[in-house]
């Protein structure tokens, strides 16, 4: 408990501490995995079968299989391995990820995606802004910076590992691409589970929420995915850049494109809800995030107070109630 509190960096008063403690206790009791959880040096019972395969996170010690990682024991046929908690993101083909461009290289962009190596997005594996299917020419290669430049936040899909072990991405649809007007949040990757849908448009709030499997979460103003609009916006922004170089009207244009205050309040509210949930270590699904946002509105919590002690405790208690009602439905 004290470690939890230290991690949360909260100053709780006496009642808040008791409430949070009891909520977390209940959550702990509800998890059925307790038996399969190991810490370092725990013995993993294998019934002394002869042909067991020791996988990742296990080691042989005096004829016993011992865990070398903290995590959950997984068994696949004869293979026994430990799936580590708090590990780095491990990409799987088809994952939707959010990343940041760190380098523009010949025919490719290099992206930081919270993996042990950088991902590669080839120019040939993304749709060009003009929407045409054609061979990439040398001119396209020279114009790469008009698509993405360093530090841009983009969203893409994991295409697969190449033979040399490098990770390749693709962005072959209008929904992938550059993300603007919003903010990037970083959470532990294990909090985002793989689901059918990672792009969410919260219609009530006019907010786009992209839950990248790599733990990068984008919260931003809603962008119309309508193809033509997208390209138009792209052109406008390029013209914008041209304008900026020749001075004049810059401030005016900047003001025109500014995020409206109402949507900004929603973005901040969603972002802070994500921060609370990730600090408490709860899985991030769109339902839970929207629940938290709605609760903060109905409780009249100020946006910045979402990160204060009282709302943390309330969020933990709400999670308990949610799981209780879930288990009732199941049982």
């Amino acid at each position: 408990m004290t470690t939890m509190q230290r991690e949360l960096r909260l100053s709780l008063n006496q009642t808040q501490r008791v409430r949070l403690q009891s909520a977390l206790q209940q959550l702990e009791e509800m998890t059925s995995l307790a038996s399969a959880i190991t810490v370092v040096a725990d013995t993993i019972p294998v019934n002394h079968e002869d042909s067991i395969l020791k996988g990742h996170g296990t080691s042989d010690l005096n004829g016993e299989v011992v865990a070398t990682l903290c995590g959950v024991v997984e068994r696949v046929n004869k293979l026994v391995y430990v799936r580590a908690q708090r590990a780095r993101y491990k990409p799987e083909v088809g994952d939707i990820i959010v990343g940041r461009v760190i380098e523009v290289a010949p025919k490719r962009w290099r992206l930081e995606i919270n993996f042990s190596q950088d991902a590669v997005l080839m120019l040939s594996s993304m749709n060009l802004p003009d929407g045409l299917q054609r061979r990439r020419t040398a001119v396209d290669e020279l114009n790469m910076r008009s698509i993405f430049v360093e530090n841009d936040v983009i969203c893409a899909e994991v295409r697969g590992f190449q033979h040399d072990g490098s990770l390749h991405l693709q962005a072959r649809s209008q929904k992938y691409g550059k993300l603007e007007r919003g903010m990037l949040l970083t959470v532990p990757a294990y909090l985002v589970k793989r689901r059918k849908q990672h792009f969410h448009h919260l219609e009530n709030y006019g907010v786009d929420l992209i839950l990248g499997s790599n733990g990068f979460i984008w919260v931003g103003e809603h962008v119309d995915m309508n193809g033509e609009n997208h390209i138009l916006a792209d052109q406008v922004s390029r013209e914008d850049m041209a304008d900026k170089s020749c001075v004049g009207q810059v401030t005016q244009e900047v003001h025109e494109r500014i995020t409206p205050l109402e949507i900004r309040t929603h973005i901040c509210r969603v972002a802070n809800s994500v921060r609370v949930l990730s600090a408490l270590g709860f899985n991030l699904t769109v339902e839970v995030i929207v629940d938290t946002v709605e609760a903060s509105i109905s409780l009249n919590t100020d946006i910045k107070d979402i990160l204060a002690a009282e709302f943390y405790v309330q969020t933990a208690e709400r999670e308990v109630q949610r799981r209780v009602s879930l288990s009732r439905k199941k049982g």
Partner: protein
Amino acid sequence: MVGLSAGEKHFIYGGIAQDLRTDGRQRLHYRPISVEIGVIPQANGSSRVRLGATDVIVSIKAELGRPSSLHPDKGKVAIFIDCSPTAAPMFEGRGGEELSSELSLALQRCLLGGRSGAGAGIDLSSLVIVEGKVCWDLYIDGLVVSSDGNLLDALAAAIKVALCNTGIPKTTVNLGASPNDQPDVDVSDEEFLQFDTSGVPVIVTLTKVGRHYIVDATSEEESQMSSAVSISVNRHGQICGLTKRGGAGLDPSVILDMISVAKHVGEQLMSSLDSEIAAAEASAEDQ
């Protein structure tokens, strides 16, 4: 260094202009501050202050020394700040030295007053044991464990908290026979004197981003700043020091405006710090 895309930069600018920053704060709001005391048992006083994701530790060590011949009636205080490589990869090796010395210098200016020690936030004359012969040397060492902007404010707050936590050992002096002898000083290891910290100021840094200025900038916001003014304010609302960073110029009228804002914000910071110190002391007694 934080790399931000044009879209994110624009979003931060817009948020500051609309008085709603990315974490929901307004321009003149601090992040929640949390305080721990007595984190280093060997030191005379120590503290750990967290301001959002910024995390600093300060320890204070008192040693017997000789006052300088120019100012025989004053003790000596030295401030050193170190940036840990755990805070950012760029602090590895000698990378943090520039920032460390900049922070040390700013804190010395704000807390220690002029070269003669006049007007210091820390009462230097209370450190003297025998005038001209023996005094206490205070070594204030700060460590930046994690950096998410606004290091100077966090360090100044941590120094203030650590000074509140500092006990200076009680001394008994046996003067030698002749006045030129070095006197014998007996240091008690049981009785400690509390340090008078009422005059120690807090630092409020106002960071100018675009047309507006904000307090307690995160590192993302700091990467967009044009200039920043750090103002140290004491309990009476007086300005004890002022440093400016960043190359861009400021209109003098803006600085005057900033000072009055800093005075107001400083009062709030001081009172929230006081209540946090009281809470930290209470929880330290519980354990």
